[in-house]
């Protein structure tokens, strides 16, 4: 994987798949306010995905636009990290995923806003403001559940432990990329460990570190997600309304 195309595609896929997963909560969230929150965060992710995938298509120069990249690729062609394709689980798992994702995207977009590529810098400068709000939202819930009842504490800790192994992949070294994610791990650890400490939760120890998303090797969950996301576009190519 080289150059800004692969990197832009990977970030665009992270945002797109995160958006699709979060949108599954619509009409199913534990309360009305949270339903609106998760849908709005999904919308932000979709907005970032559209900008990144449109630019990826231009960098590739093969005539693929955002829709072609979103709807007409198969699972092995997606480059998102495994974290975003994992099932939503219960609300605690979803908040654990959102905490880790936004604590990764915030320093990533911030670093991107200072990179030499003007288009990526503009996208990073825009998206980081939204990521900061997502991080704030996830942190509030993780603290609330961690410090809540024994049952909410147990489930929040279980949620963190379930998704923690997927953190390693986010920060795998990528020296050719406009921003090497390996340089962001310290920021991530600082933010996440502070939130978990305040939530009276413990940072899991994990030796198992699944990876492969950046090479197109995914969990089976992605295929089902794509089937639902792509079916309309594939059944009615070029449909407009």
């Amino acid at each position, binding site marked *: 994987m080289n150059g800004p195309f692969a990197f832009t595609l990977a970030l665009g896929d992270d945002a797109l798949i995160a958006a699709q997963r979060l949108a599954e909560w619509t009409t199913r969230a534990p309360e009305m306010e949270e339903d609106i*929150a998760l849908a709005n965060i999904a*919308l*932000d992710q979709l907005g970032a995905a559209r900008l990144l995938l449109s630019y990826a298509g231009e960098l590739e120069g093969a005539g693929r636009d955002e829709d072609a990249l979103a709807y007409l690729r198969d699972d092995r062609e997606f480059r998102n990290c495994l974290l975003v394709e994992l099932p939503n689980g219960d609300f605690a798992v979803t908040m654990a995923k959102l905490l880790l994702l936004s604590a990764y995207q915030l320093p990533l977009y911030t670093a991107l806003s200072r990179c030499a590529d003007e288009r990526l810098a503009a996208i990073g400068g825009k998206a980081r403001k939204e990521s900061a*709000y997502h991080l704030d939202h996830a942190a509030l819930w993780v603290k609330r559940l961690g410090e809540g009842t024994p049952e909410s504490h147990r489930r929040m800790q279980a949620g963190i432990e379930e998704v923690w192994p997927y953190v390693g992949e986010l920060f795998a070294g990528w020296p050719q990329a406009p921003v090497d994610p390996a340089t962001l791990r310290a920021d991530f650890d600082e933010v996440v460990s502070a939130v978990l400490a305040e939530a009276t939760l413990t940072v899991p120890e994990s030796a198992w570190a699944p990876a492969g998303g950046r090479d197109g090797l995914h969990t089976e969950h992605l295929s089902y997600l794509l089937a639902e996301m792509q079916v309309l576009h594939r059944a009615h190519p070029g449909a407009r309304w």
Partner: protein
Amino acid sequence: MSDARAAVAAVVDPEIRVVTIEDLGILRDVEVEPGTGRVVVTITPTYTGCPAMDVIRADIRRAVTAAGHPDVEVRTVHSPAWSTDWISDAGRAKLAAAGIAPPAPVRRDGVVPLTLTVRCPRCGSPETEQLSRFGSTACKALWRCRACSEPFDTVKAL
């Protein structure tokens, strides 16, 4: 101000119809190219996923065409990123009059938004509380006034 500029500046936000795209700071530039007469309008989204952008582009084209300029190009830029600090004083007054609390100023040295007290747009009381961090559009949150008990929207500082 040219008639093209005036026509674009009068386009209202499709989701908050009491303010114009100029009031909100979405409108960045209007240029009439000498010679061709082409009108180039530059806008920026409030949020990356703002679903109103397509309608805003269509409304701009319609307004400029109606003002006698059939050749219109709408460009979308993302840098510098939109800030609620770009909402004009007139825009803030219109929002408040419509029951939507204008945003607090954004702290410049950090990216984490501060939680500041929002004054009730109806009775002016600072005794308010947040009901929901997200609201009816991407740019708003839902609050409630403890003094007059009315719930209200506020534009999130960004």
